[in-house]
């Protein structure tokens, strides 16, 4: 029966860049990339302050497309500062390449390979714990890696793997089934891959700690690692500790009845220090036109007055008045056509946007990568802007 404490984290994505930023501030991009390191450094500090016996990292430490020798070197430096064993199962984003092995990780780090491996760790108090793990060896695999892991009946076993639990069968990221996992002699499944933290099961524990730093507005809220306390081979405490440097948030800002100054002041006051926000502009009013036509200027004005960082503005507001779609004039026809375009099926809509050879060649794939909601927002924006043009021209 062992007593010990360990840290479980995953999806560090060190050095990865952030998506969905309207701001053209290049320092912001740099600061955001740096935040992944900062968050992991805090996890290392957490391991020290908690006197953890070991750490498990369940994949996606790096982004393959962003990894540089320096990234791996910095990761090695942080790990080298820990005097506890660290176990890494690589994920789909950081399956190893040849040159990376030449930048060695410190001796306290154990990397799992492509075959299942069981590592018996003797703790300082003489207790034992088993860490069973396996790594990705390529970017995609539809092989169930989790099912390959084995544990011990008489020793607390931590299963360390990067996998996709109970998603579609067609998943290319080591699809696994929860029912299979809980049948194994593994007491704690330290998983990685899903960026939203989740405890899928208790006894045995099946845990996604989420990523350590949100990378886009879709990954809002606190991010960090779990501190797992095991007493007499039983998980007594599973405590999430936020370590993120930047918190992504969406702030809803209503323009109804507001003038420019009061809108800017009101939005600025809502933005907290160290937060990175997307401002979702809602409501109806005269400001709609200004925000649509000069979103960058509005962003800049809010940024200058706020403590945090404004990454993006999403204009979901409406102008003071919109022509109805029922009239027989051209403007009403525009409104009704826009409404029908909004309902168009995705491919047709993209075809409508990219109707020229040049746009088909260069831009179509960009629109194809957008979500349905993003495409609909474009249509909504086009409708409002077009109606504004009619309104301006008739003034």
């Amino acid at each position, binding site marked *: 029966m062992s007593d010990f404490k360990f840290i479980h984290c995953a999806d560090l994505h060190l*050095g990865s*860049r*952030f*998506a*969905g*930023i*309207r*701001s*053209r501030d*290049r320092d912001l*991009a*740099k600061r955001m*990339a740096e935040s992944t390191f900062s968050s992991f450094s805090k996890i290392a500090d957490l391991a020290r302050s908690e006197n953890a016996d070991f750490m498990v990292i369940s994949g996606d430490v790096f982004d393959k497309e*962003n*990894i*540089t*020798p*320096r*990234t791996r*070197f910095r990761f090695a430096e942080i790990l080298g500062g820990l005097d506890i064993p660290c176990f890494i199962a690589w994920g789909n984003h950081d399956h190893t*390449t*040849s*040159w*990376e092995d*030449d*930048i060695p990780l410190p001796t306290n780090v154990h990397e799992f390979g492509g075959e299942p491996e069981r590592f018996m760790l003797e703790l300082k108090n003489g207790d034992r714990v088993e860490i069973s793990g396996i790594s990705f060896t390529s970017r995609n695999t539809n092989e169930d890696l989790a099912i390959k892991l084995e544990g011990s009946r008489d020793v607390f076993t931590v299963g360390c793997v990067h996998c996709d639990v109970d998603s579609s069968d067609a998943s290319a990221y080591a699809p696994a089934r929860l029912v299979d996992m809980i049948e194994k002699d593994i007491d704690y499944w330290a998983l990685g891959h899903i960026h939203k933290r989740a405890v899928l099961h208790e006894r045995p524990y099946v845990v996604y700690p989420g990523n350590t730093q949100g990378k886009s507005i879709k990954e809002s809220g606190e991010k960090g690692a779990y501190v797992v306390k095991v007493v007499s081979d039983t998980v007594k405490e599973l405590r999430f500790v936020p370590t993120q440097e930047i918190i992504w948030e969406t702030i809803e800002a209503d323009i109804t009845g507001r003038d420019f100054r009061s809108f800017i002041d009101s939005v600025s006051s809502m933005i907290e220090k160290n937060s990175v926000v997307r401002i979702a502009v809602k409501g109806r009013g005269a400001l709609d036109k200004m925000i649509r036509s000069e979103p960058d200027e509005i962003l800049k004005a809010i940024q200058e007055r706020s403590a945090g960082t404004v990454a993006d503005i999403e204009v979901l507001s409406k102008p003071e008045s919109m022509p109805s779609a029922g009239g*027989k*004039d*051209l*403007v*009403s*026809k*525009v409104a*009704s*056509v*826009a409404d029908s*375009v909004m309902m168009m099926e995705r491919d047709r809509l993209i075809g*409508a*946007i*990219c*109707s*020229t050879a*040049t*746009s088909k*060649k*260069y*831009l179509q794939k*960009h*629109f194809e990568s957008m979500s349905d909601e993003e495409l609909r927002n*474009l*249509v909504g*924006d*086009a*409708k409002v*802007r*077009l109606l504004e*043009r*009619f309104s301006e*021209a*008739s003034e």
Partner: protein
Amino acid sequence: MIIEAVRIRLFGKAVNKDYGPISPGLTVCYGENESGKTTLKEFIRTTLFKTGKRKNVYPQTSASDSGEIDCITDSGKRFTVTRSGSKIVSSIGMMPSDISGVDPDIYRSVYAMGPEDLIDTDAVESGDIKRRFLTVPGGENMPQISESINIGMEDLLRPEKMTSIKGIGKLFDDIRENGEAIKAARSKGPEYERLAADEGRIVAELSALKEKKAEADTVRANIKAYEKQEMNLKEYGELEISLDGMADANRAPPEGMGRYNELMASEIALRKSMQSADEKLASLVKEMGGASSDAVMRNEEKIRSLNENIGSYLSATSDMEAADGSASRLDEEVAALTGNGLSPETVRNADTGRGTIERASVTEMPKKNYVPALALLALASVCAMAAFVSGVPYIYAASVVALAAIYFVLPKRGPEDGFSDFISSRGFPRDTRREDVAGLCEKIDRIRALEQKRDSELQRASNMRAKIARLETELASVASEAGIGRGSFESDVRRLNALITISSSISEAKTTAEEARSEHQRAKNSLGEYLEPYGSAEELERIVDLKKKKDEIENKMENIKKIMGSAGIDTGSEAPMPPDDPAEEIDEKQRELGKIISQKDAILRDAETERLLDERSSLSAELDSEIRKWGVLSLERYIADMACDDIYENMQPQVIRTADRYLDMMTGGLYRMESNPRTKDVSIRGGTEVKAKGQWSSGLAGQVCLSLKLAVAKELSEEKLPILLDDVLLVFDSERKLGACRALSEAAKDMQIVFFTCDLETCGFMKQVGADLIEMSL
């Protein structure tokens, strides 16, 4: 509005011509040239829609123009427009232009056409008419909006070709360049791998070289030791020789120069103490200012006593002066009191007791005998009277004097002498009067008291004087002995008192100086005694130095002896040969290794890739933003196009639809007319072919223009105005003429058309389509 009849009284060449009734539909006015067609047309036009005088237009208006036109409005109201010279009036007060809202110029260009007007489509395709009739409601600004969208899109992305000058094209280019830079930067990963392999190889080579060097180092060390041994032997021999001639070193005291230095330091210190004591003594003696300290000390008690008596002395002086002053003032008082006939004897001797005063009052006093005197006085008075009467004044005066003398020399009566004796016996003058006795006694008592007080003051002054004299005498004696000049008592005593302290210090300083002198002498003696065996300090130093050198040499020799013993090298054997040294090779390898390590380190610390990735991130964000902008614009254009297509398909402008109907009839269905909603330009569709304005033949252009003008005329005003066409079909071929006549017949269902022609064929076609005929002649 329909023209029912026209009566020309005088206009141009026409005189008293009546035309009517005129059909509300299509009427053809046929006549040869000069038959009055244009005159009629112009009369109608210029009467219903009065214009200013125009040059080169037949017929010119004149003051004699006159006539009437009977009309009926669409609402059935009949009225007559009467023309008389330039004056034109309507029977209902409103002219056709007022009823219809059509101004005369528009009427002339749209409703009253000549052949030349058929090639001018600008009249209906420009300005207000175009805005009003060639678009659907709300579509007026479509061209401007469409252009603005296109400009916006082209700013972001040229439709025909991607360029890297600006917008999305530039961002693509930037991203491509950034991608290449990242690719180059990321090649450092494999580069690191190569360097790591090189590092491993060089480390292995270095290891082998270092082993080789260690062996070589051992051999070299042996060689060095051998050489060292030989050198040591040589040095030992030289040192042995140098010991000769150092016998004097044995005389050196074991403590070296230490003891000598101590004694020397002591002597110097004591000499300084002695000098210091002497200086202090001299300073004190100087402070005495020539006074004898011994004498001061001898008289210390006297001086202290005098010092204590300074107050007494000053007090005595003050008292003495006060007593002298007081005595002097008392003397003056006594003198003042004794001045009034009081002799000193009386003051001294008179008995002023109570008995004297009481007895004086009772003792009988002597009285004068006045009888002889009175007799004499009477006599004298008689004499005086006689003298007065006689007038001899001197006799009178002599009598008075004689009488007075007699009175005063009258003898006293006895026993008056009793009081005088008594008072005289009491020490008073005999002539003292009884009533003065008490006052005299009091005065004398006062004088005696003052004298007694004065004497007392004098005695006190005398006592003080004696005391002062005693103290002065004592001070004079001490000052003389001490040798100080005299000044005031107080200052002298105080100075002497101060000299006691200095004299006391002098005494102590003398003792100190004496002791210091003795101690210095002792130190000097000790130093001399110490140096005696060596003769001099220089000699002692020489011997001590010699001893030091000797000791050093002996120590060195001892060390060499030890080294030679421990080395165990037989210097007699042959020296080993030096091996090949791989040091240079090692240095080179280490340099190479250092270079690789720093290259690896540079790669590990290289932030350029990160910077490029940041740049890529920003560029991608920027591109995303620009593409979204473009997407919105593209959707705007798409929505606008769709809306236009949709609305124009169902809601072509009424003018276009009407014109299209007329054109359809004119061309036998070959051409249809439509309007481009984005430009509002009229275009002609023939089958699948669409012909824009510049692509029409002159015939087609005439047909289009006529159709458009008829349609505009129909739509321009709610009040339908009569159309006056002056041989507008002359340019058409027969087929087009017939088509046009059909179209005119169709149009005449909605509005009155009066067609003037000299062309028989046209006239025939007109009649064929049902037109009423008016044959023209002048």
